[in-house]
């Protein structure tokens, strides 16, 4: 079994596998190594908006124009971006690809008190949106990215991968 956390290089390779053209991302503690890897990549364009609702709306425009964007977003940002997610993906059947950071996961698993309030709402929130998701906890799980891509494409609906550990350099 791989060590905990996903390598940024492995995740970047998975993004190439699904032909990602753009990643919309705001840096956070968990995604920073992947963020840096995408920024250094010559083929995938990294766009850093100011808030997550912008990420989703820009991604919707890119997809409508024929690109294959992915939104790298923390669970807290997904909560912030609810109306954009509704209006720019769920409502119009835009198959948005979401890579969602599960802030609070590690602390909750270690039973550290207080539990980050972002932790318990993440899975119920995705279920409330009817967004299918799978877990990405180490490099053995990287196939989840291609599975998410297929699910989004076949359903014309957003799909997500949820990662609980910070990406490794």
């Amino acid at each position, binding site marked *: 079994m791989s060590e905990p956390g996903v390598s940024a290089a492995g995740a970047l390779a998975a993004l190439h596998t699904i032909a990602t053209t753009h990643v919309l991302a705001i840096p956070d503690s968990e995604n920073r190594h992947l963020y840096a890897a995408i920024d250094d990549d010559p083929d995938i364009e990294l*766009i850093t908006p100011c808030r997550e609702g*912008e990420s989703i709306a820009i991604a919707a425009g890119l997809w409508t*124009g024929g690109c294959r964007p992915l939104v790298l977003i923390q669970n807290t940002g997904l909560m912030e971006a609810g109306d954009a997610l509704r209006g720019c993906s769920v409502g119009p059947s835009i198959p948005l690809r979401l890579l969602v950071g599960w802030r609070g996961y590690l602390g909750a698993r270690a039973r550290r008190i207080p539990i980050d309030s972002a932790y318990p709402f993440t899975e119920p929130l995705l279920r409330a949106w009817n967004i299918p998701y799978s877990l990405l906890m180490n490099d053995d799980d990287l196939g989840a990215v291609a599975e998410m891509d297929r699910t989004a494409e076949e359903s014309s609906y957003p799909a997500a991968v949820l990662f609980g550990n910070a990406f490794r350099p």
Partner: protein
Amino acid sequence: MSSIPTAPRHHQVIDRMELFRSLAARRTDEIIVTTMTATLQWPLVSQHPLDFDFLAFGMGHASDFGMGLALARPERKTIVLKGDGGLLMSLGSLVTMGRYGPGNLMVLLLENRSYEITGGQALPPRADFAALARAAGVEGGGRTGTGKVERIETLDAFEERYPVLRREPGPHFVVLPVHNAEPLPPVAHTDHAGRIRNLRSALGVTGEVSQGTSKDRRPAP
């Protein structure tokens, strides 16, 4: 007691329907994204396959969607007709436009100083939208460093300026003070997914992936 601050006084405003008629008459192959009250009146002057009604797609995000479209379709201009109330819902979008906005993006800000679609409630009176765009880095910014911010206060000036806006690289952020004298048609929400399908079809988008604009390696100033 201190006096209540008021908006900068602008002596001229443009009739919005006249503006729309003028733009529709000059438009060729541009994508035009509309939102809020513009979605009600633009169809009165235009029924073009590259018109896109953003109503109910996400409050305040029409220009973000337009930026994504413009990045994906560099071969044509994308014009966004949005209001000042909508801009206030996502002011950070100006900063994003100032950093990444492509040269083929044009935002026409319809400044009426009110939330018109909900009954005309007043906007914060002192906000200067052109100054905000400049401070956000749009002027001289965007991905090619050719961003422009301007204010156009008459229909004649708009008609004189539009061919240049259409031709020269942006991104352009244009503030147009407008008023409306005509009754608004009722809001009619149409099929979200159908609107997207129609636009993709009009753009010729198939399963083939567009790379959009190539990755910008321009060093930060």
